[in-house]
């Protein structure tokens, strides 16, 4: 086990109540635990009734499950948030500049800041995008930056999600649930609203419409379908934006545009917020077996007939091997020092790094370069000897497939448990919208919490829960 001398966001490292939690703590002290327990159950019922569920992969019948919700909010002060926002904006601008560069002149490679093979031999690099300028110059319309915290001012970026980040519906519904259950908390605390997210998203997507769009852009959300793990979120966002939720079989290319089959015939789409991976986007250009995409959409895209959000090929920016170059990337494109730190990372593709990682396997977290959702990762300190030796073999067989990071002492935030307030490890995913004119970070985000005591795995597929995340007004 890791020694549990971590930073608690409510009590600090020394047990003194931190300022952002002061008001909340007063309230909590006066509350009857019995009432709170009842509210806890009520929250679960609310979630079930609203149908905020996710489908679990790897089960015969796609079963719908609830992500556990914890009623104790995670509170961040306005000034903390402001600093964080500046770092996030800087990073997201750098990511977009990086994407433009590697699909055009590759200056960063020419400058020797990133090895050529990191790009050309990367599975996430999409040759189809070479020389393509996306409408408005935006590659990542929606980004989720995964952050962890180790101290009062210490935030680290764990991962950039530049493909199709999910979880924003939980950010919104968690807030909605808290507003319904504890309205008094929101009159006592000045919490910055997150509710504008769907409108901002629509505005941001519309602003990136292609030249082919005529008048008010037609936006649609593309979902793989009702059995996808995030279907609820896809439907939720389409509903909140007031746009159509489409699937592969609703779409086809008509007269050089991607069009949806309506009751009145085919209607062109200007901006497609797709929640389908690149590989499945176009059976003519990518995976020919795909039944989730639109045949020929890439050709329409390259001809400027549609905006795809996020743009195809953005995955290279959140690739875990590229991640380790992020500090260089930020510096190269912004000319500034990175405001947000990376977690130190060993690239197992490099012999020295691999040797170090193999020697210290039981202290490290090892991740697949292309993996996501906490699958296929090793958490050294909590793994058995057998697990370690199994993983060692995998690592030796394909070292280029892995990166390793030290086990950080993640901050904790209390959850409401049978014993009262109990600290649990958390991470944070703020959501960022990028339009041709601006970068906009929603004040809050998705706080994921490892509900098991001492656990560091916050993924919903592996027993994690969520919390409402408050950013206070200054």
């Amino acid at each position: 086990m890791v020694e549990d001398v971590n930073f608690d966001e409510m009590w600090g490292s020394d047990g003194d109540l931190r300022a952002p939690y002061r008001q909340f703590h007063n309230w909590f002290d006066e509350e009857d635990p019995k009432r709170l327990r009842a509210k806890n159950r009520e929250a679960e019922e609310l979630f079930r009734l609203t149908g905020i569920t996710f489908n679990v992969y790897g089960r015969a019948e796609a079963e719908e499950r609830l992500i556990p919700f914890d009623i104790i909010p995670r509170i961040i002060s306005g000034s903390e948030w402001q600093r964080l926002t500046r770092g996030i904006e800087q990073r997201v601008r750098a990511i977009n500049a990086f994407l433009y560069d590697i699909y055009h002149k590759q200056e960063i490679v020419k400058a020797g800041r990133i090895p050529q093979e990191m790009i050309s031999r990367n599975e996430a690099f999409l040759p189809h995008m070479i020389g393509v300028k996306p409408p408005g110059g935006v590659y990542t319309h929606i980004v989720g930056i995964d952050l962890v915290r180790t101290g009062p001012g210490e935030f680290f970026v764990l991962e950039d999600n530049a493909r199709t980040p999910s979880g924003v519906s939980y950010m919104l519904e968690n807030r909605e649930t808290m507003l319904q259950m504890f309205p008094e908390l929101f009159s006592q605390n000045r919490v910055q609203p997150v509710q504008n997210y769907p409108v901002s998203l629509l505005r941001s997507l519309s602003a990136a419409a292609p030249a082919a769009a005529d008048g008010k852009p037609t936006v649609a959300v593309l979902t793989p379908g009702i059995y996808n793990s995030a279907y609820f979120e896809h439907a939720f966002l389409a509903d909140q934006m007031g746009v159509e939720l489409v699937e592969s079989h609703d779409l086809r290319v008509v007269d050089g545009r991607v069009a949806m089959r309506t009751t009145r015939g085919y209607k062109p789409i200007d901006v497609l917020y797709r929640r389908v991976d690149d590989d499945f986007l176009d059976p003519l250009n990518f995976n020919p077996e795909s039944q989730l995409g639109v045949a020929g959409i890439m050709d329409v895209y390259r001809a400027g007939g549609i905006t795809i959000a996020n743009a195809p090929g953005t995955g290279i920016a959140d690739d875990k091997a590229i991640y380790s170059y992020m500090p260089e990337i930020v510096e190269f494109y912004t000319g500034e020092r990175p405001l947000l730190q990376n977690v130190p990372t060993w690239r197992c593709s490099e012999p020295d790094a691999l040797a170090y990682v193999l020697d210290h396997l039981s202290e490290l977290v090892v991740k697949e370069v292309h993996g996501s959702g906490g699958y296929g990762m090793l958490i050294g300190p909590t793994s058995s000897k057998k697990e370690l030796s199994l993983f060692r073999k995998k690592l030796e067989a394909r070292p280029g497939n892995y990166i390793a990071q030290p086990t950080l002492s993640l901050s904790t935030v209390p959850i409401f448990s049978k014993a009262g307030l109990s600290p649990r490890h958390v991470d944070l995913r703020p959501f960022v919208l990028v339009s041709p004119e601006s970068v906009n970070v929603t004040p809050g985000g998705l706080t994921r919490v490892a509900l098991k005591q001492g656990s560091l795995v916050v993924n919903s597929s592996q027993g994690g829960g969520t919390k409402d995340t408050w950013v206070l007004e200054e």
Partner: protein
Amino acid sequence: MLGKTANGLFWMYRYLERAENTARLIETGQRIALTRLSQSDEEWRSVLQSAGALPGFDTAYEALTKDNAIDWMLRNQDNPSSVKSCIAAARQNARLVRTAITGDVWEATNAAHMTAEKLLARKVTERDLPNTLRRLRENTALVRGVTLGTMLRNEIFDFSRIGTFLERADNTARILDVKYYVLLPASSAVGTSIDNVQWETILRSLSARGGFRMEYGAGGGPREIAQFLILDSRMPRSLSFCAKKICDNLGYLCQDYGTRPSAMDLADDLRQGPLAQSIDEIFEFGLHEFIQEAQQRLAALTQQIELDYRFYE
């Protein structure tokens, strides 16, 4: 609106209507079984037929008993028309069209599904049956209530209504198809208790008993029952009533879209042809033949709507 969404709305409301109709048929079957002097499980065969649930029953169960028939219609998931299957299918379609319906409608549908899953998780005992059926019906009624109370009167509403009334017309026609012989003048030995029970069954199966008594008092025989269930434009489950509703909502779609699809012609033909006759003309034509023709026309209308509004490819 997406063709897929129109399709999802149409079926969401068809399944809700069907769930309610099947629940009502079970209730009727149970009530008749309780009040009959000589008990015969064979009567359940005609209940199954009325519910359109006969196919598959004999492979699922060894014998036709009351318990088996009720279990099949209520909660067997191999029966696509069981109450449980219908509510699950309605909810699945509601998820599909989540962006078209109001939050209230979604939550009521989701709650109906949650309740049904709980109530129908295990075999329902005879003692619990009335209460279970009542709660199931309350739940689907709530969905209808919030639909009427919260949905905009636009194309979305039109497709949901067309689905509702096609299913309802189909259900009424099926019940008449199974029981038409007890309404024939030739076979009616008026006043025998058998016929009274059979007439009662038909009326109860269509929630028409109260309305019929209000209209005809203690009188009224097979001719009046047929007239009431087929032609009475005030009776919300009669073929005429349903056909008028379908025409109304198709008509709104025509206005909205500025085009008149073939489905509108088929619906008009149904009203102005077969349903424009008097009950005596219908008997003269042949009640059975009339009902079969009505059923065929309803099926053809469904197909045409699917085509006209691009439900599928």
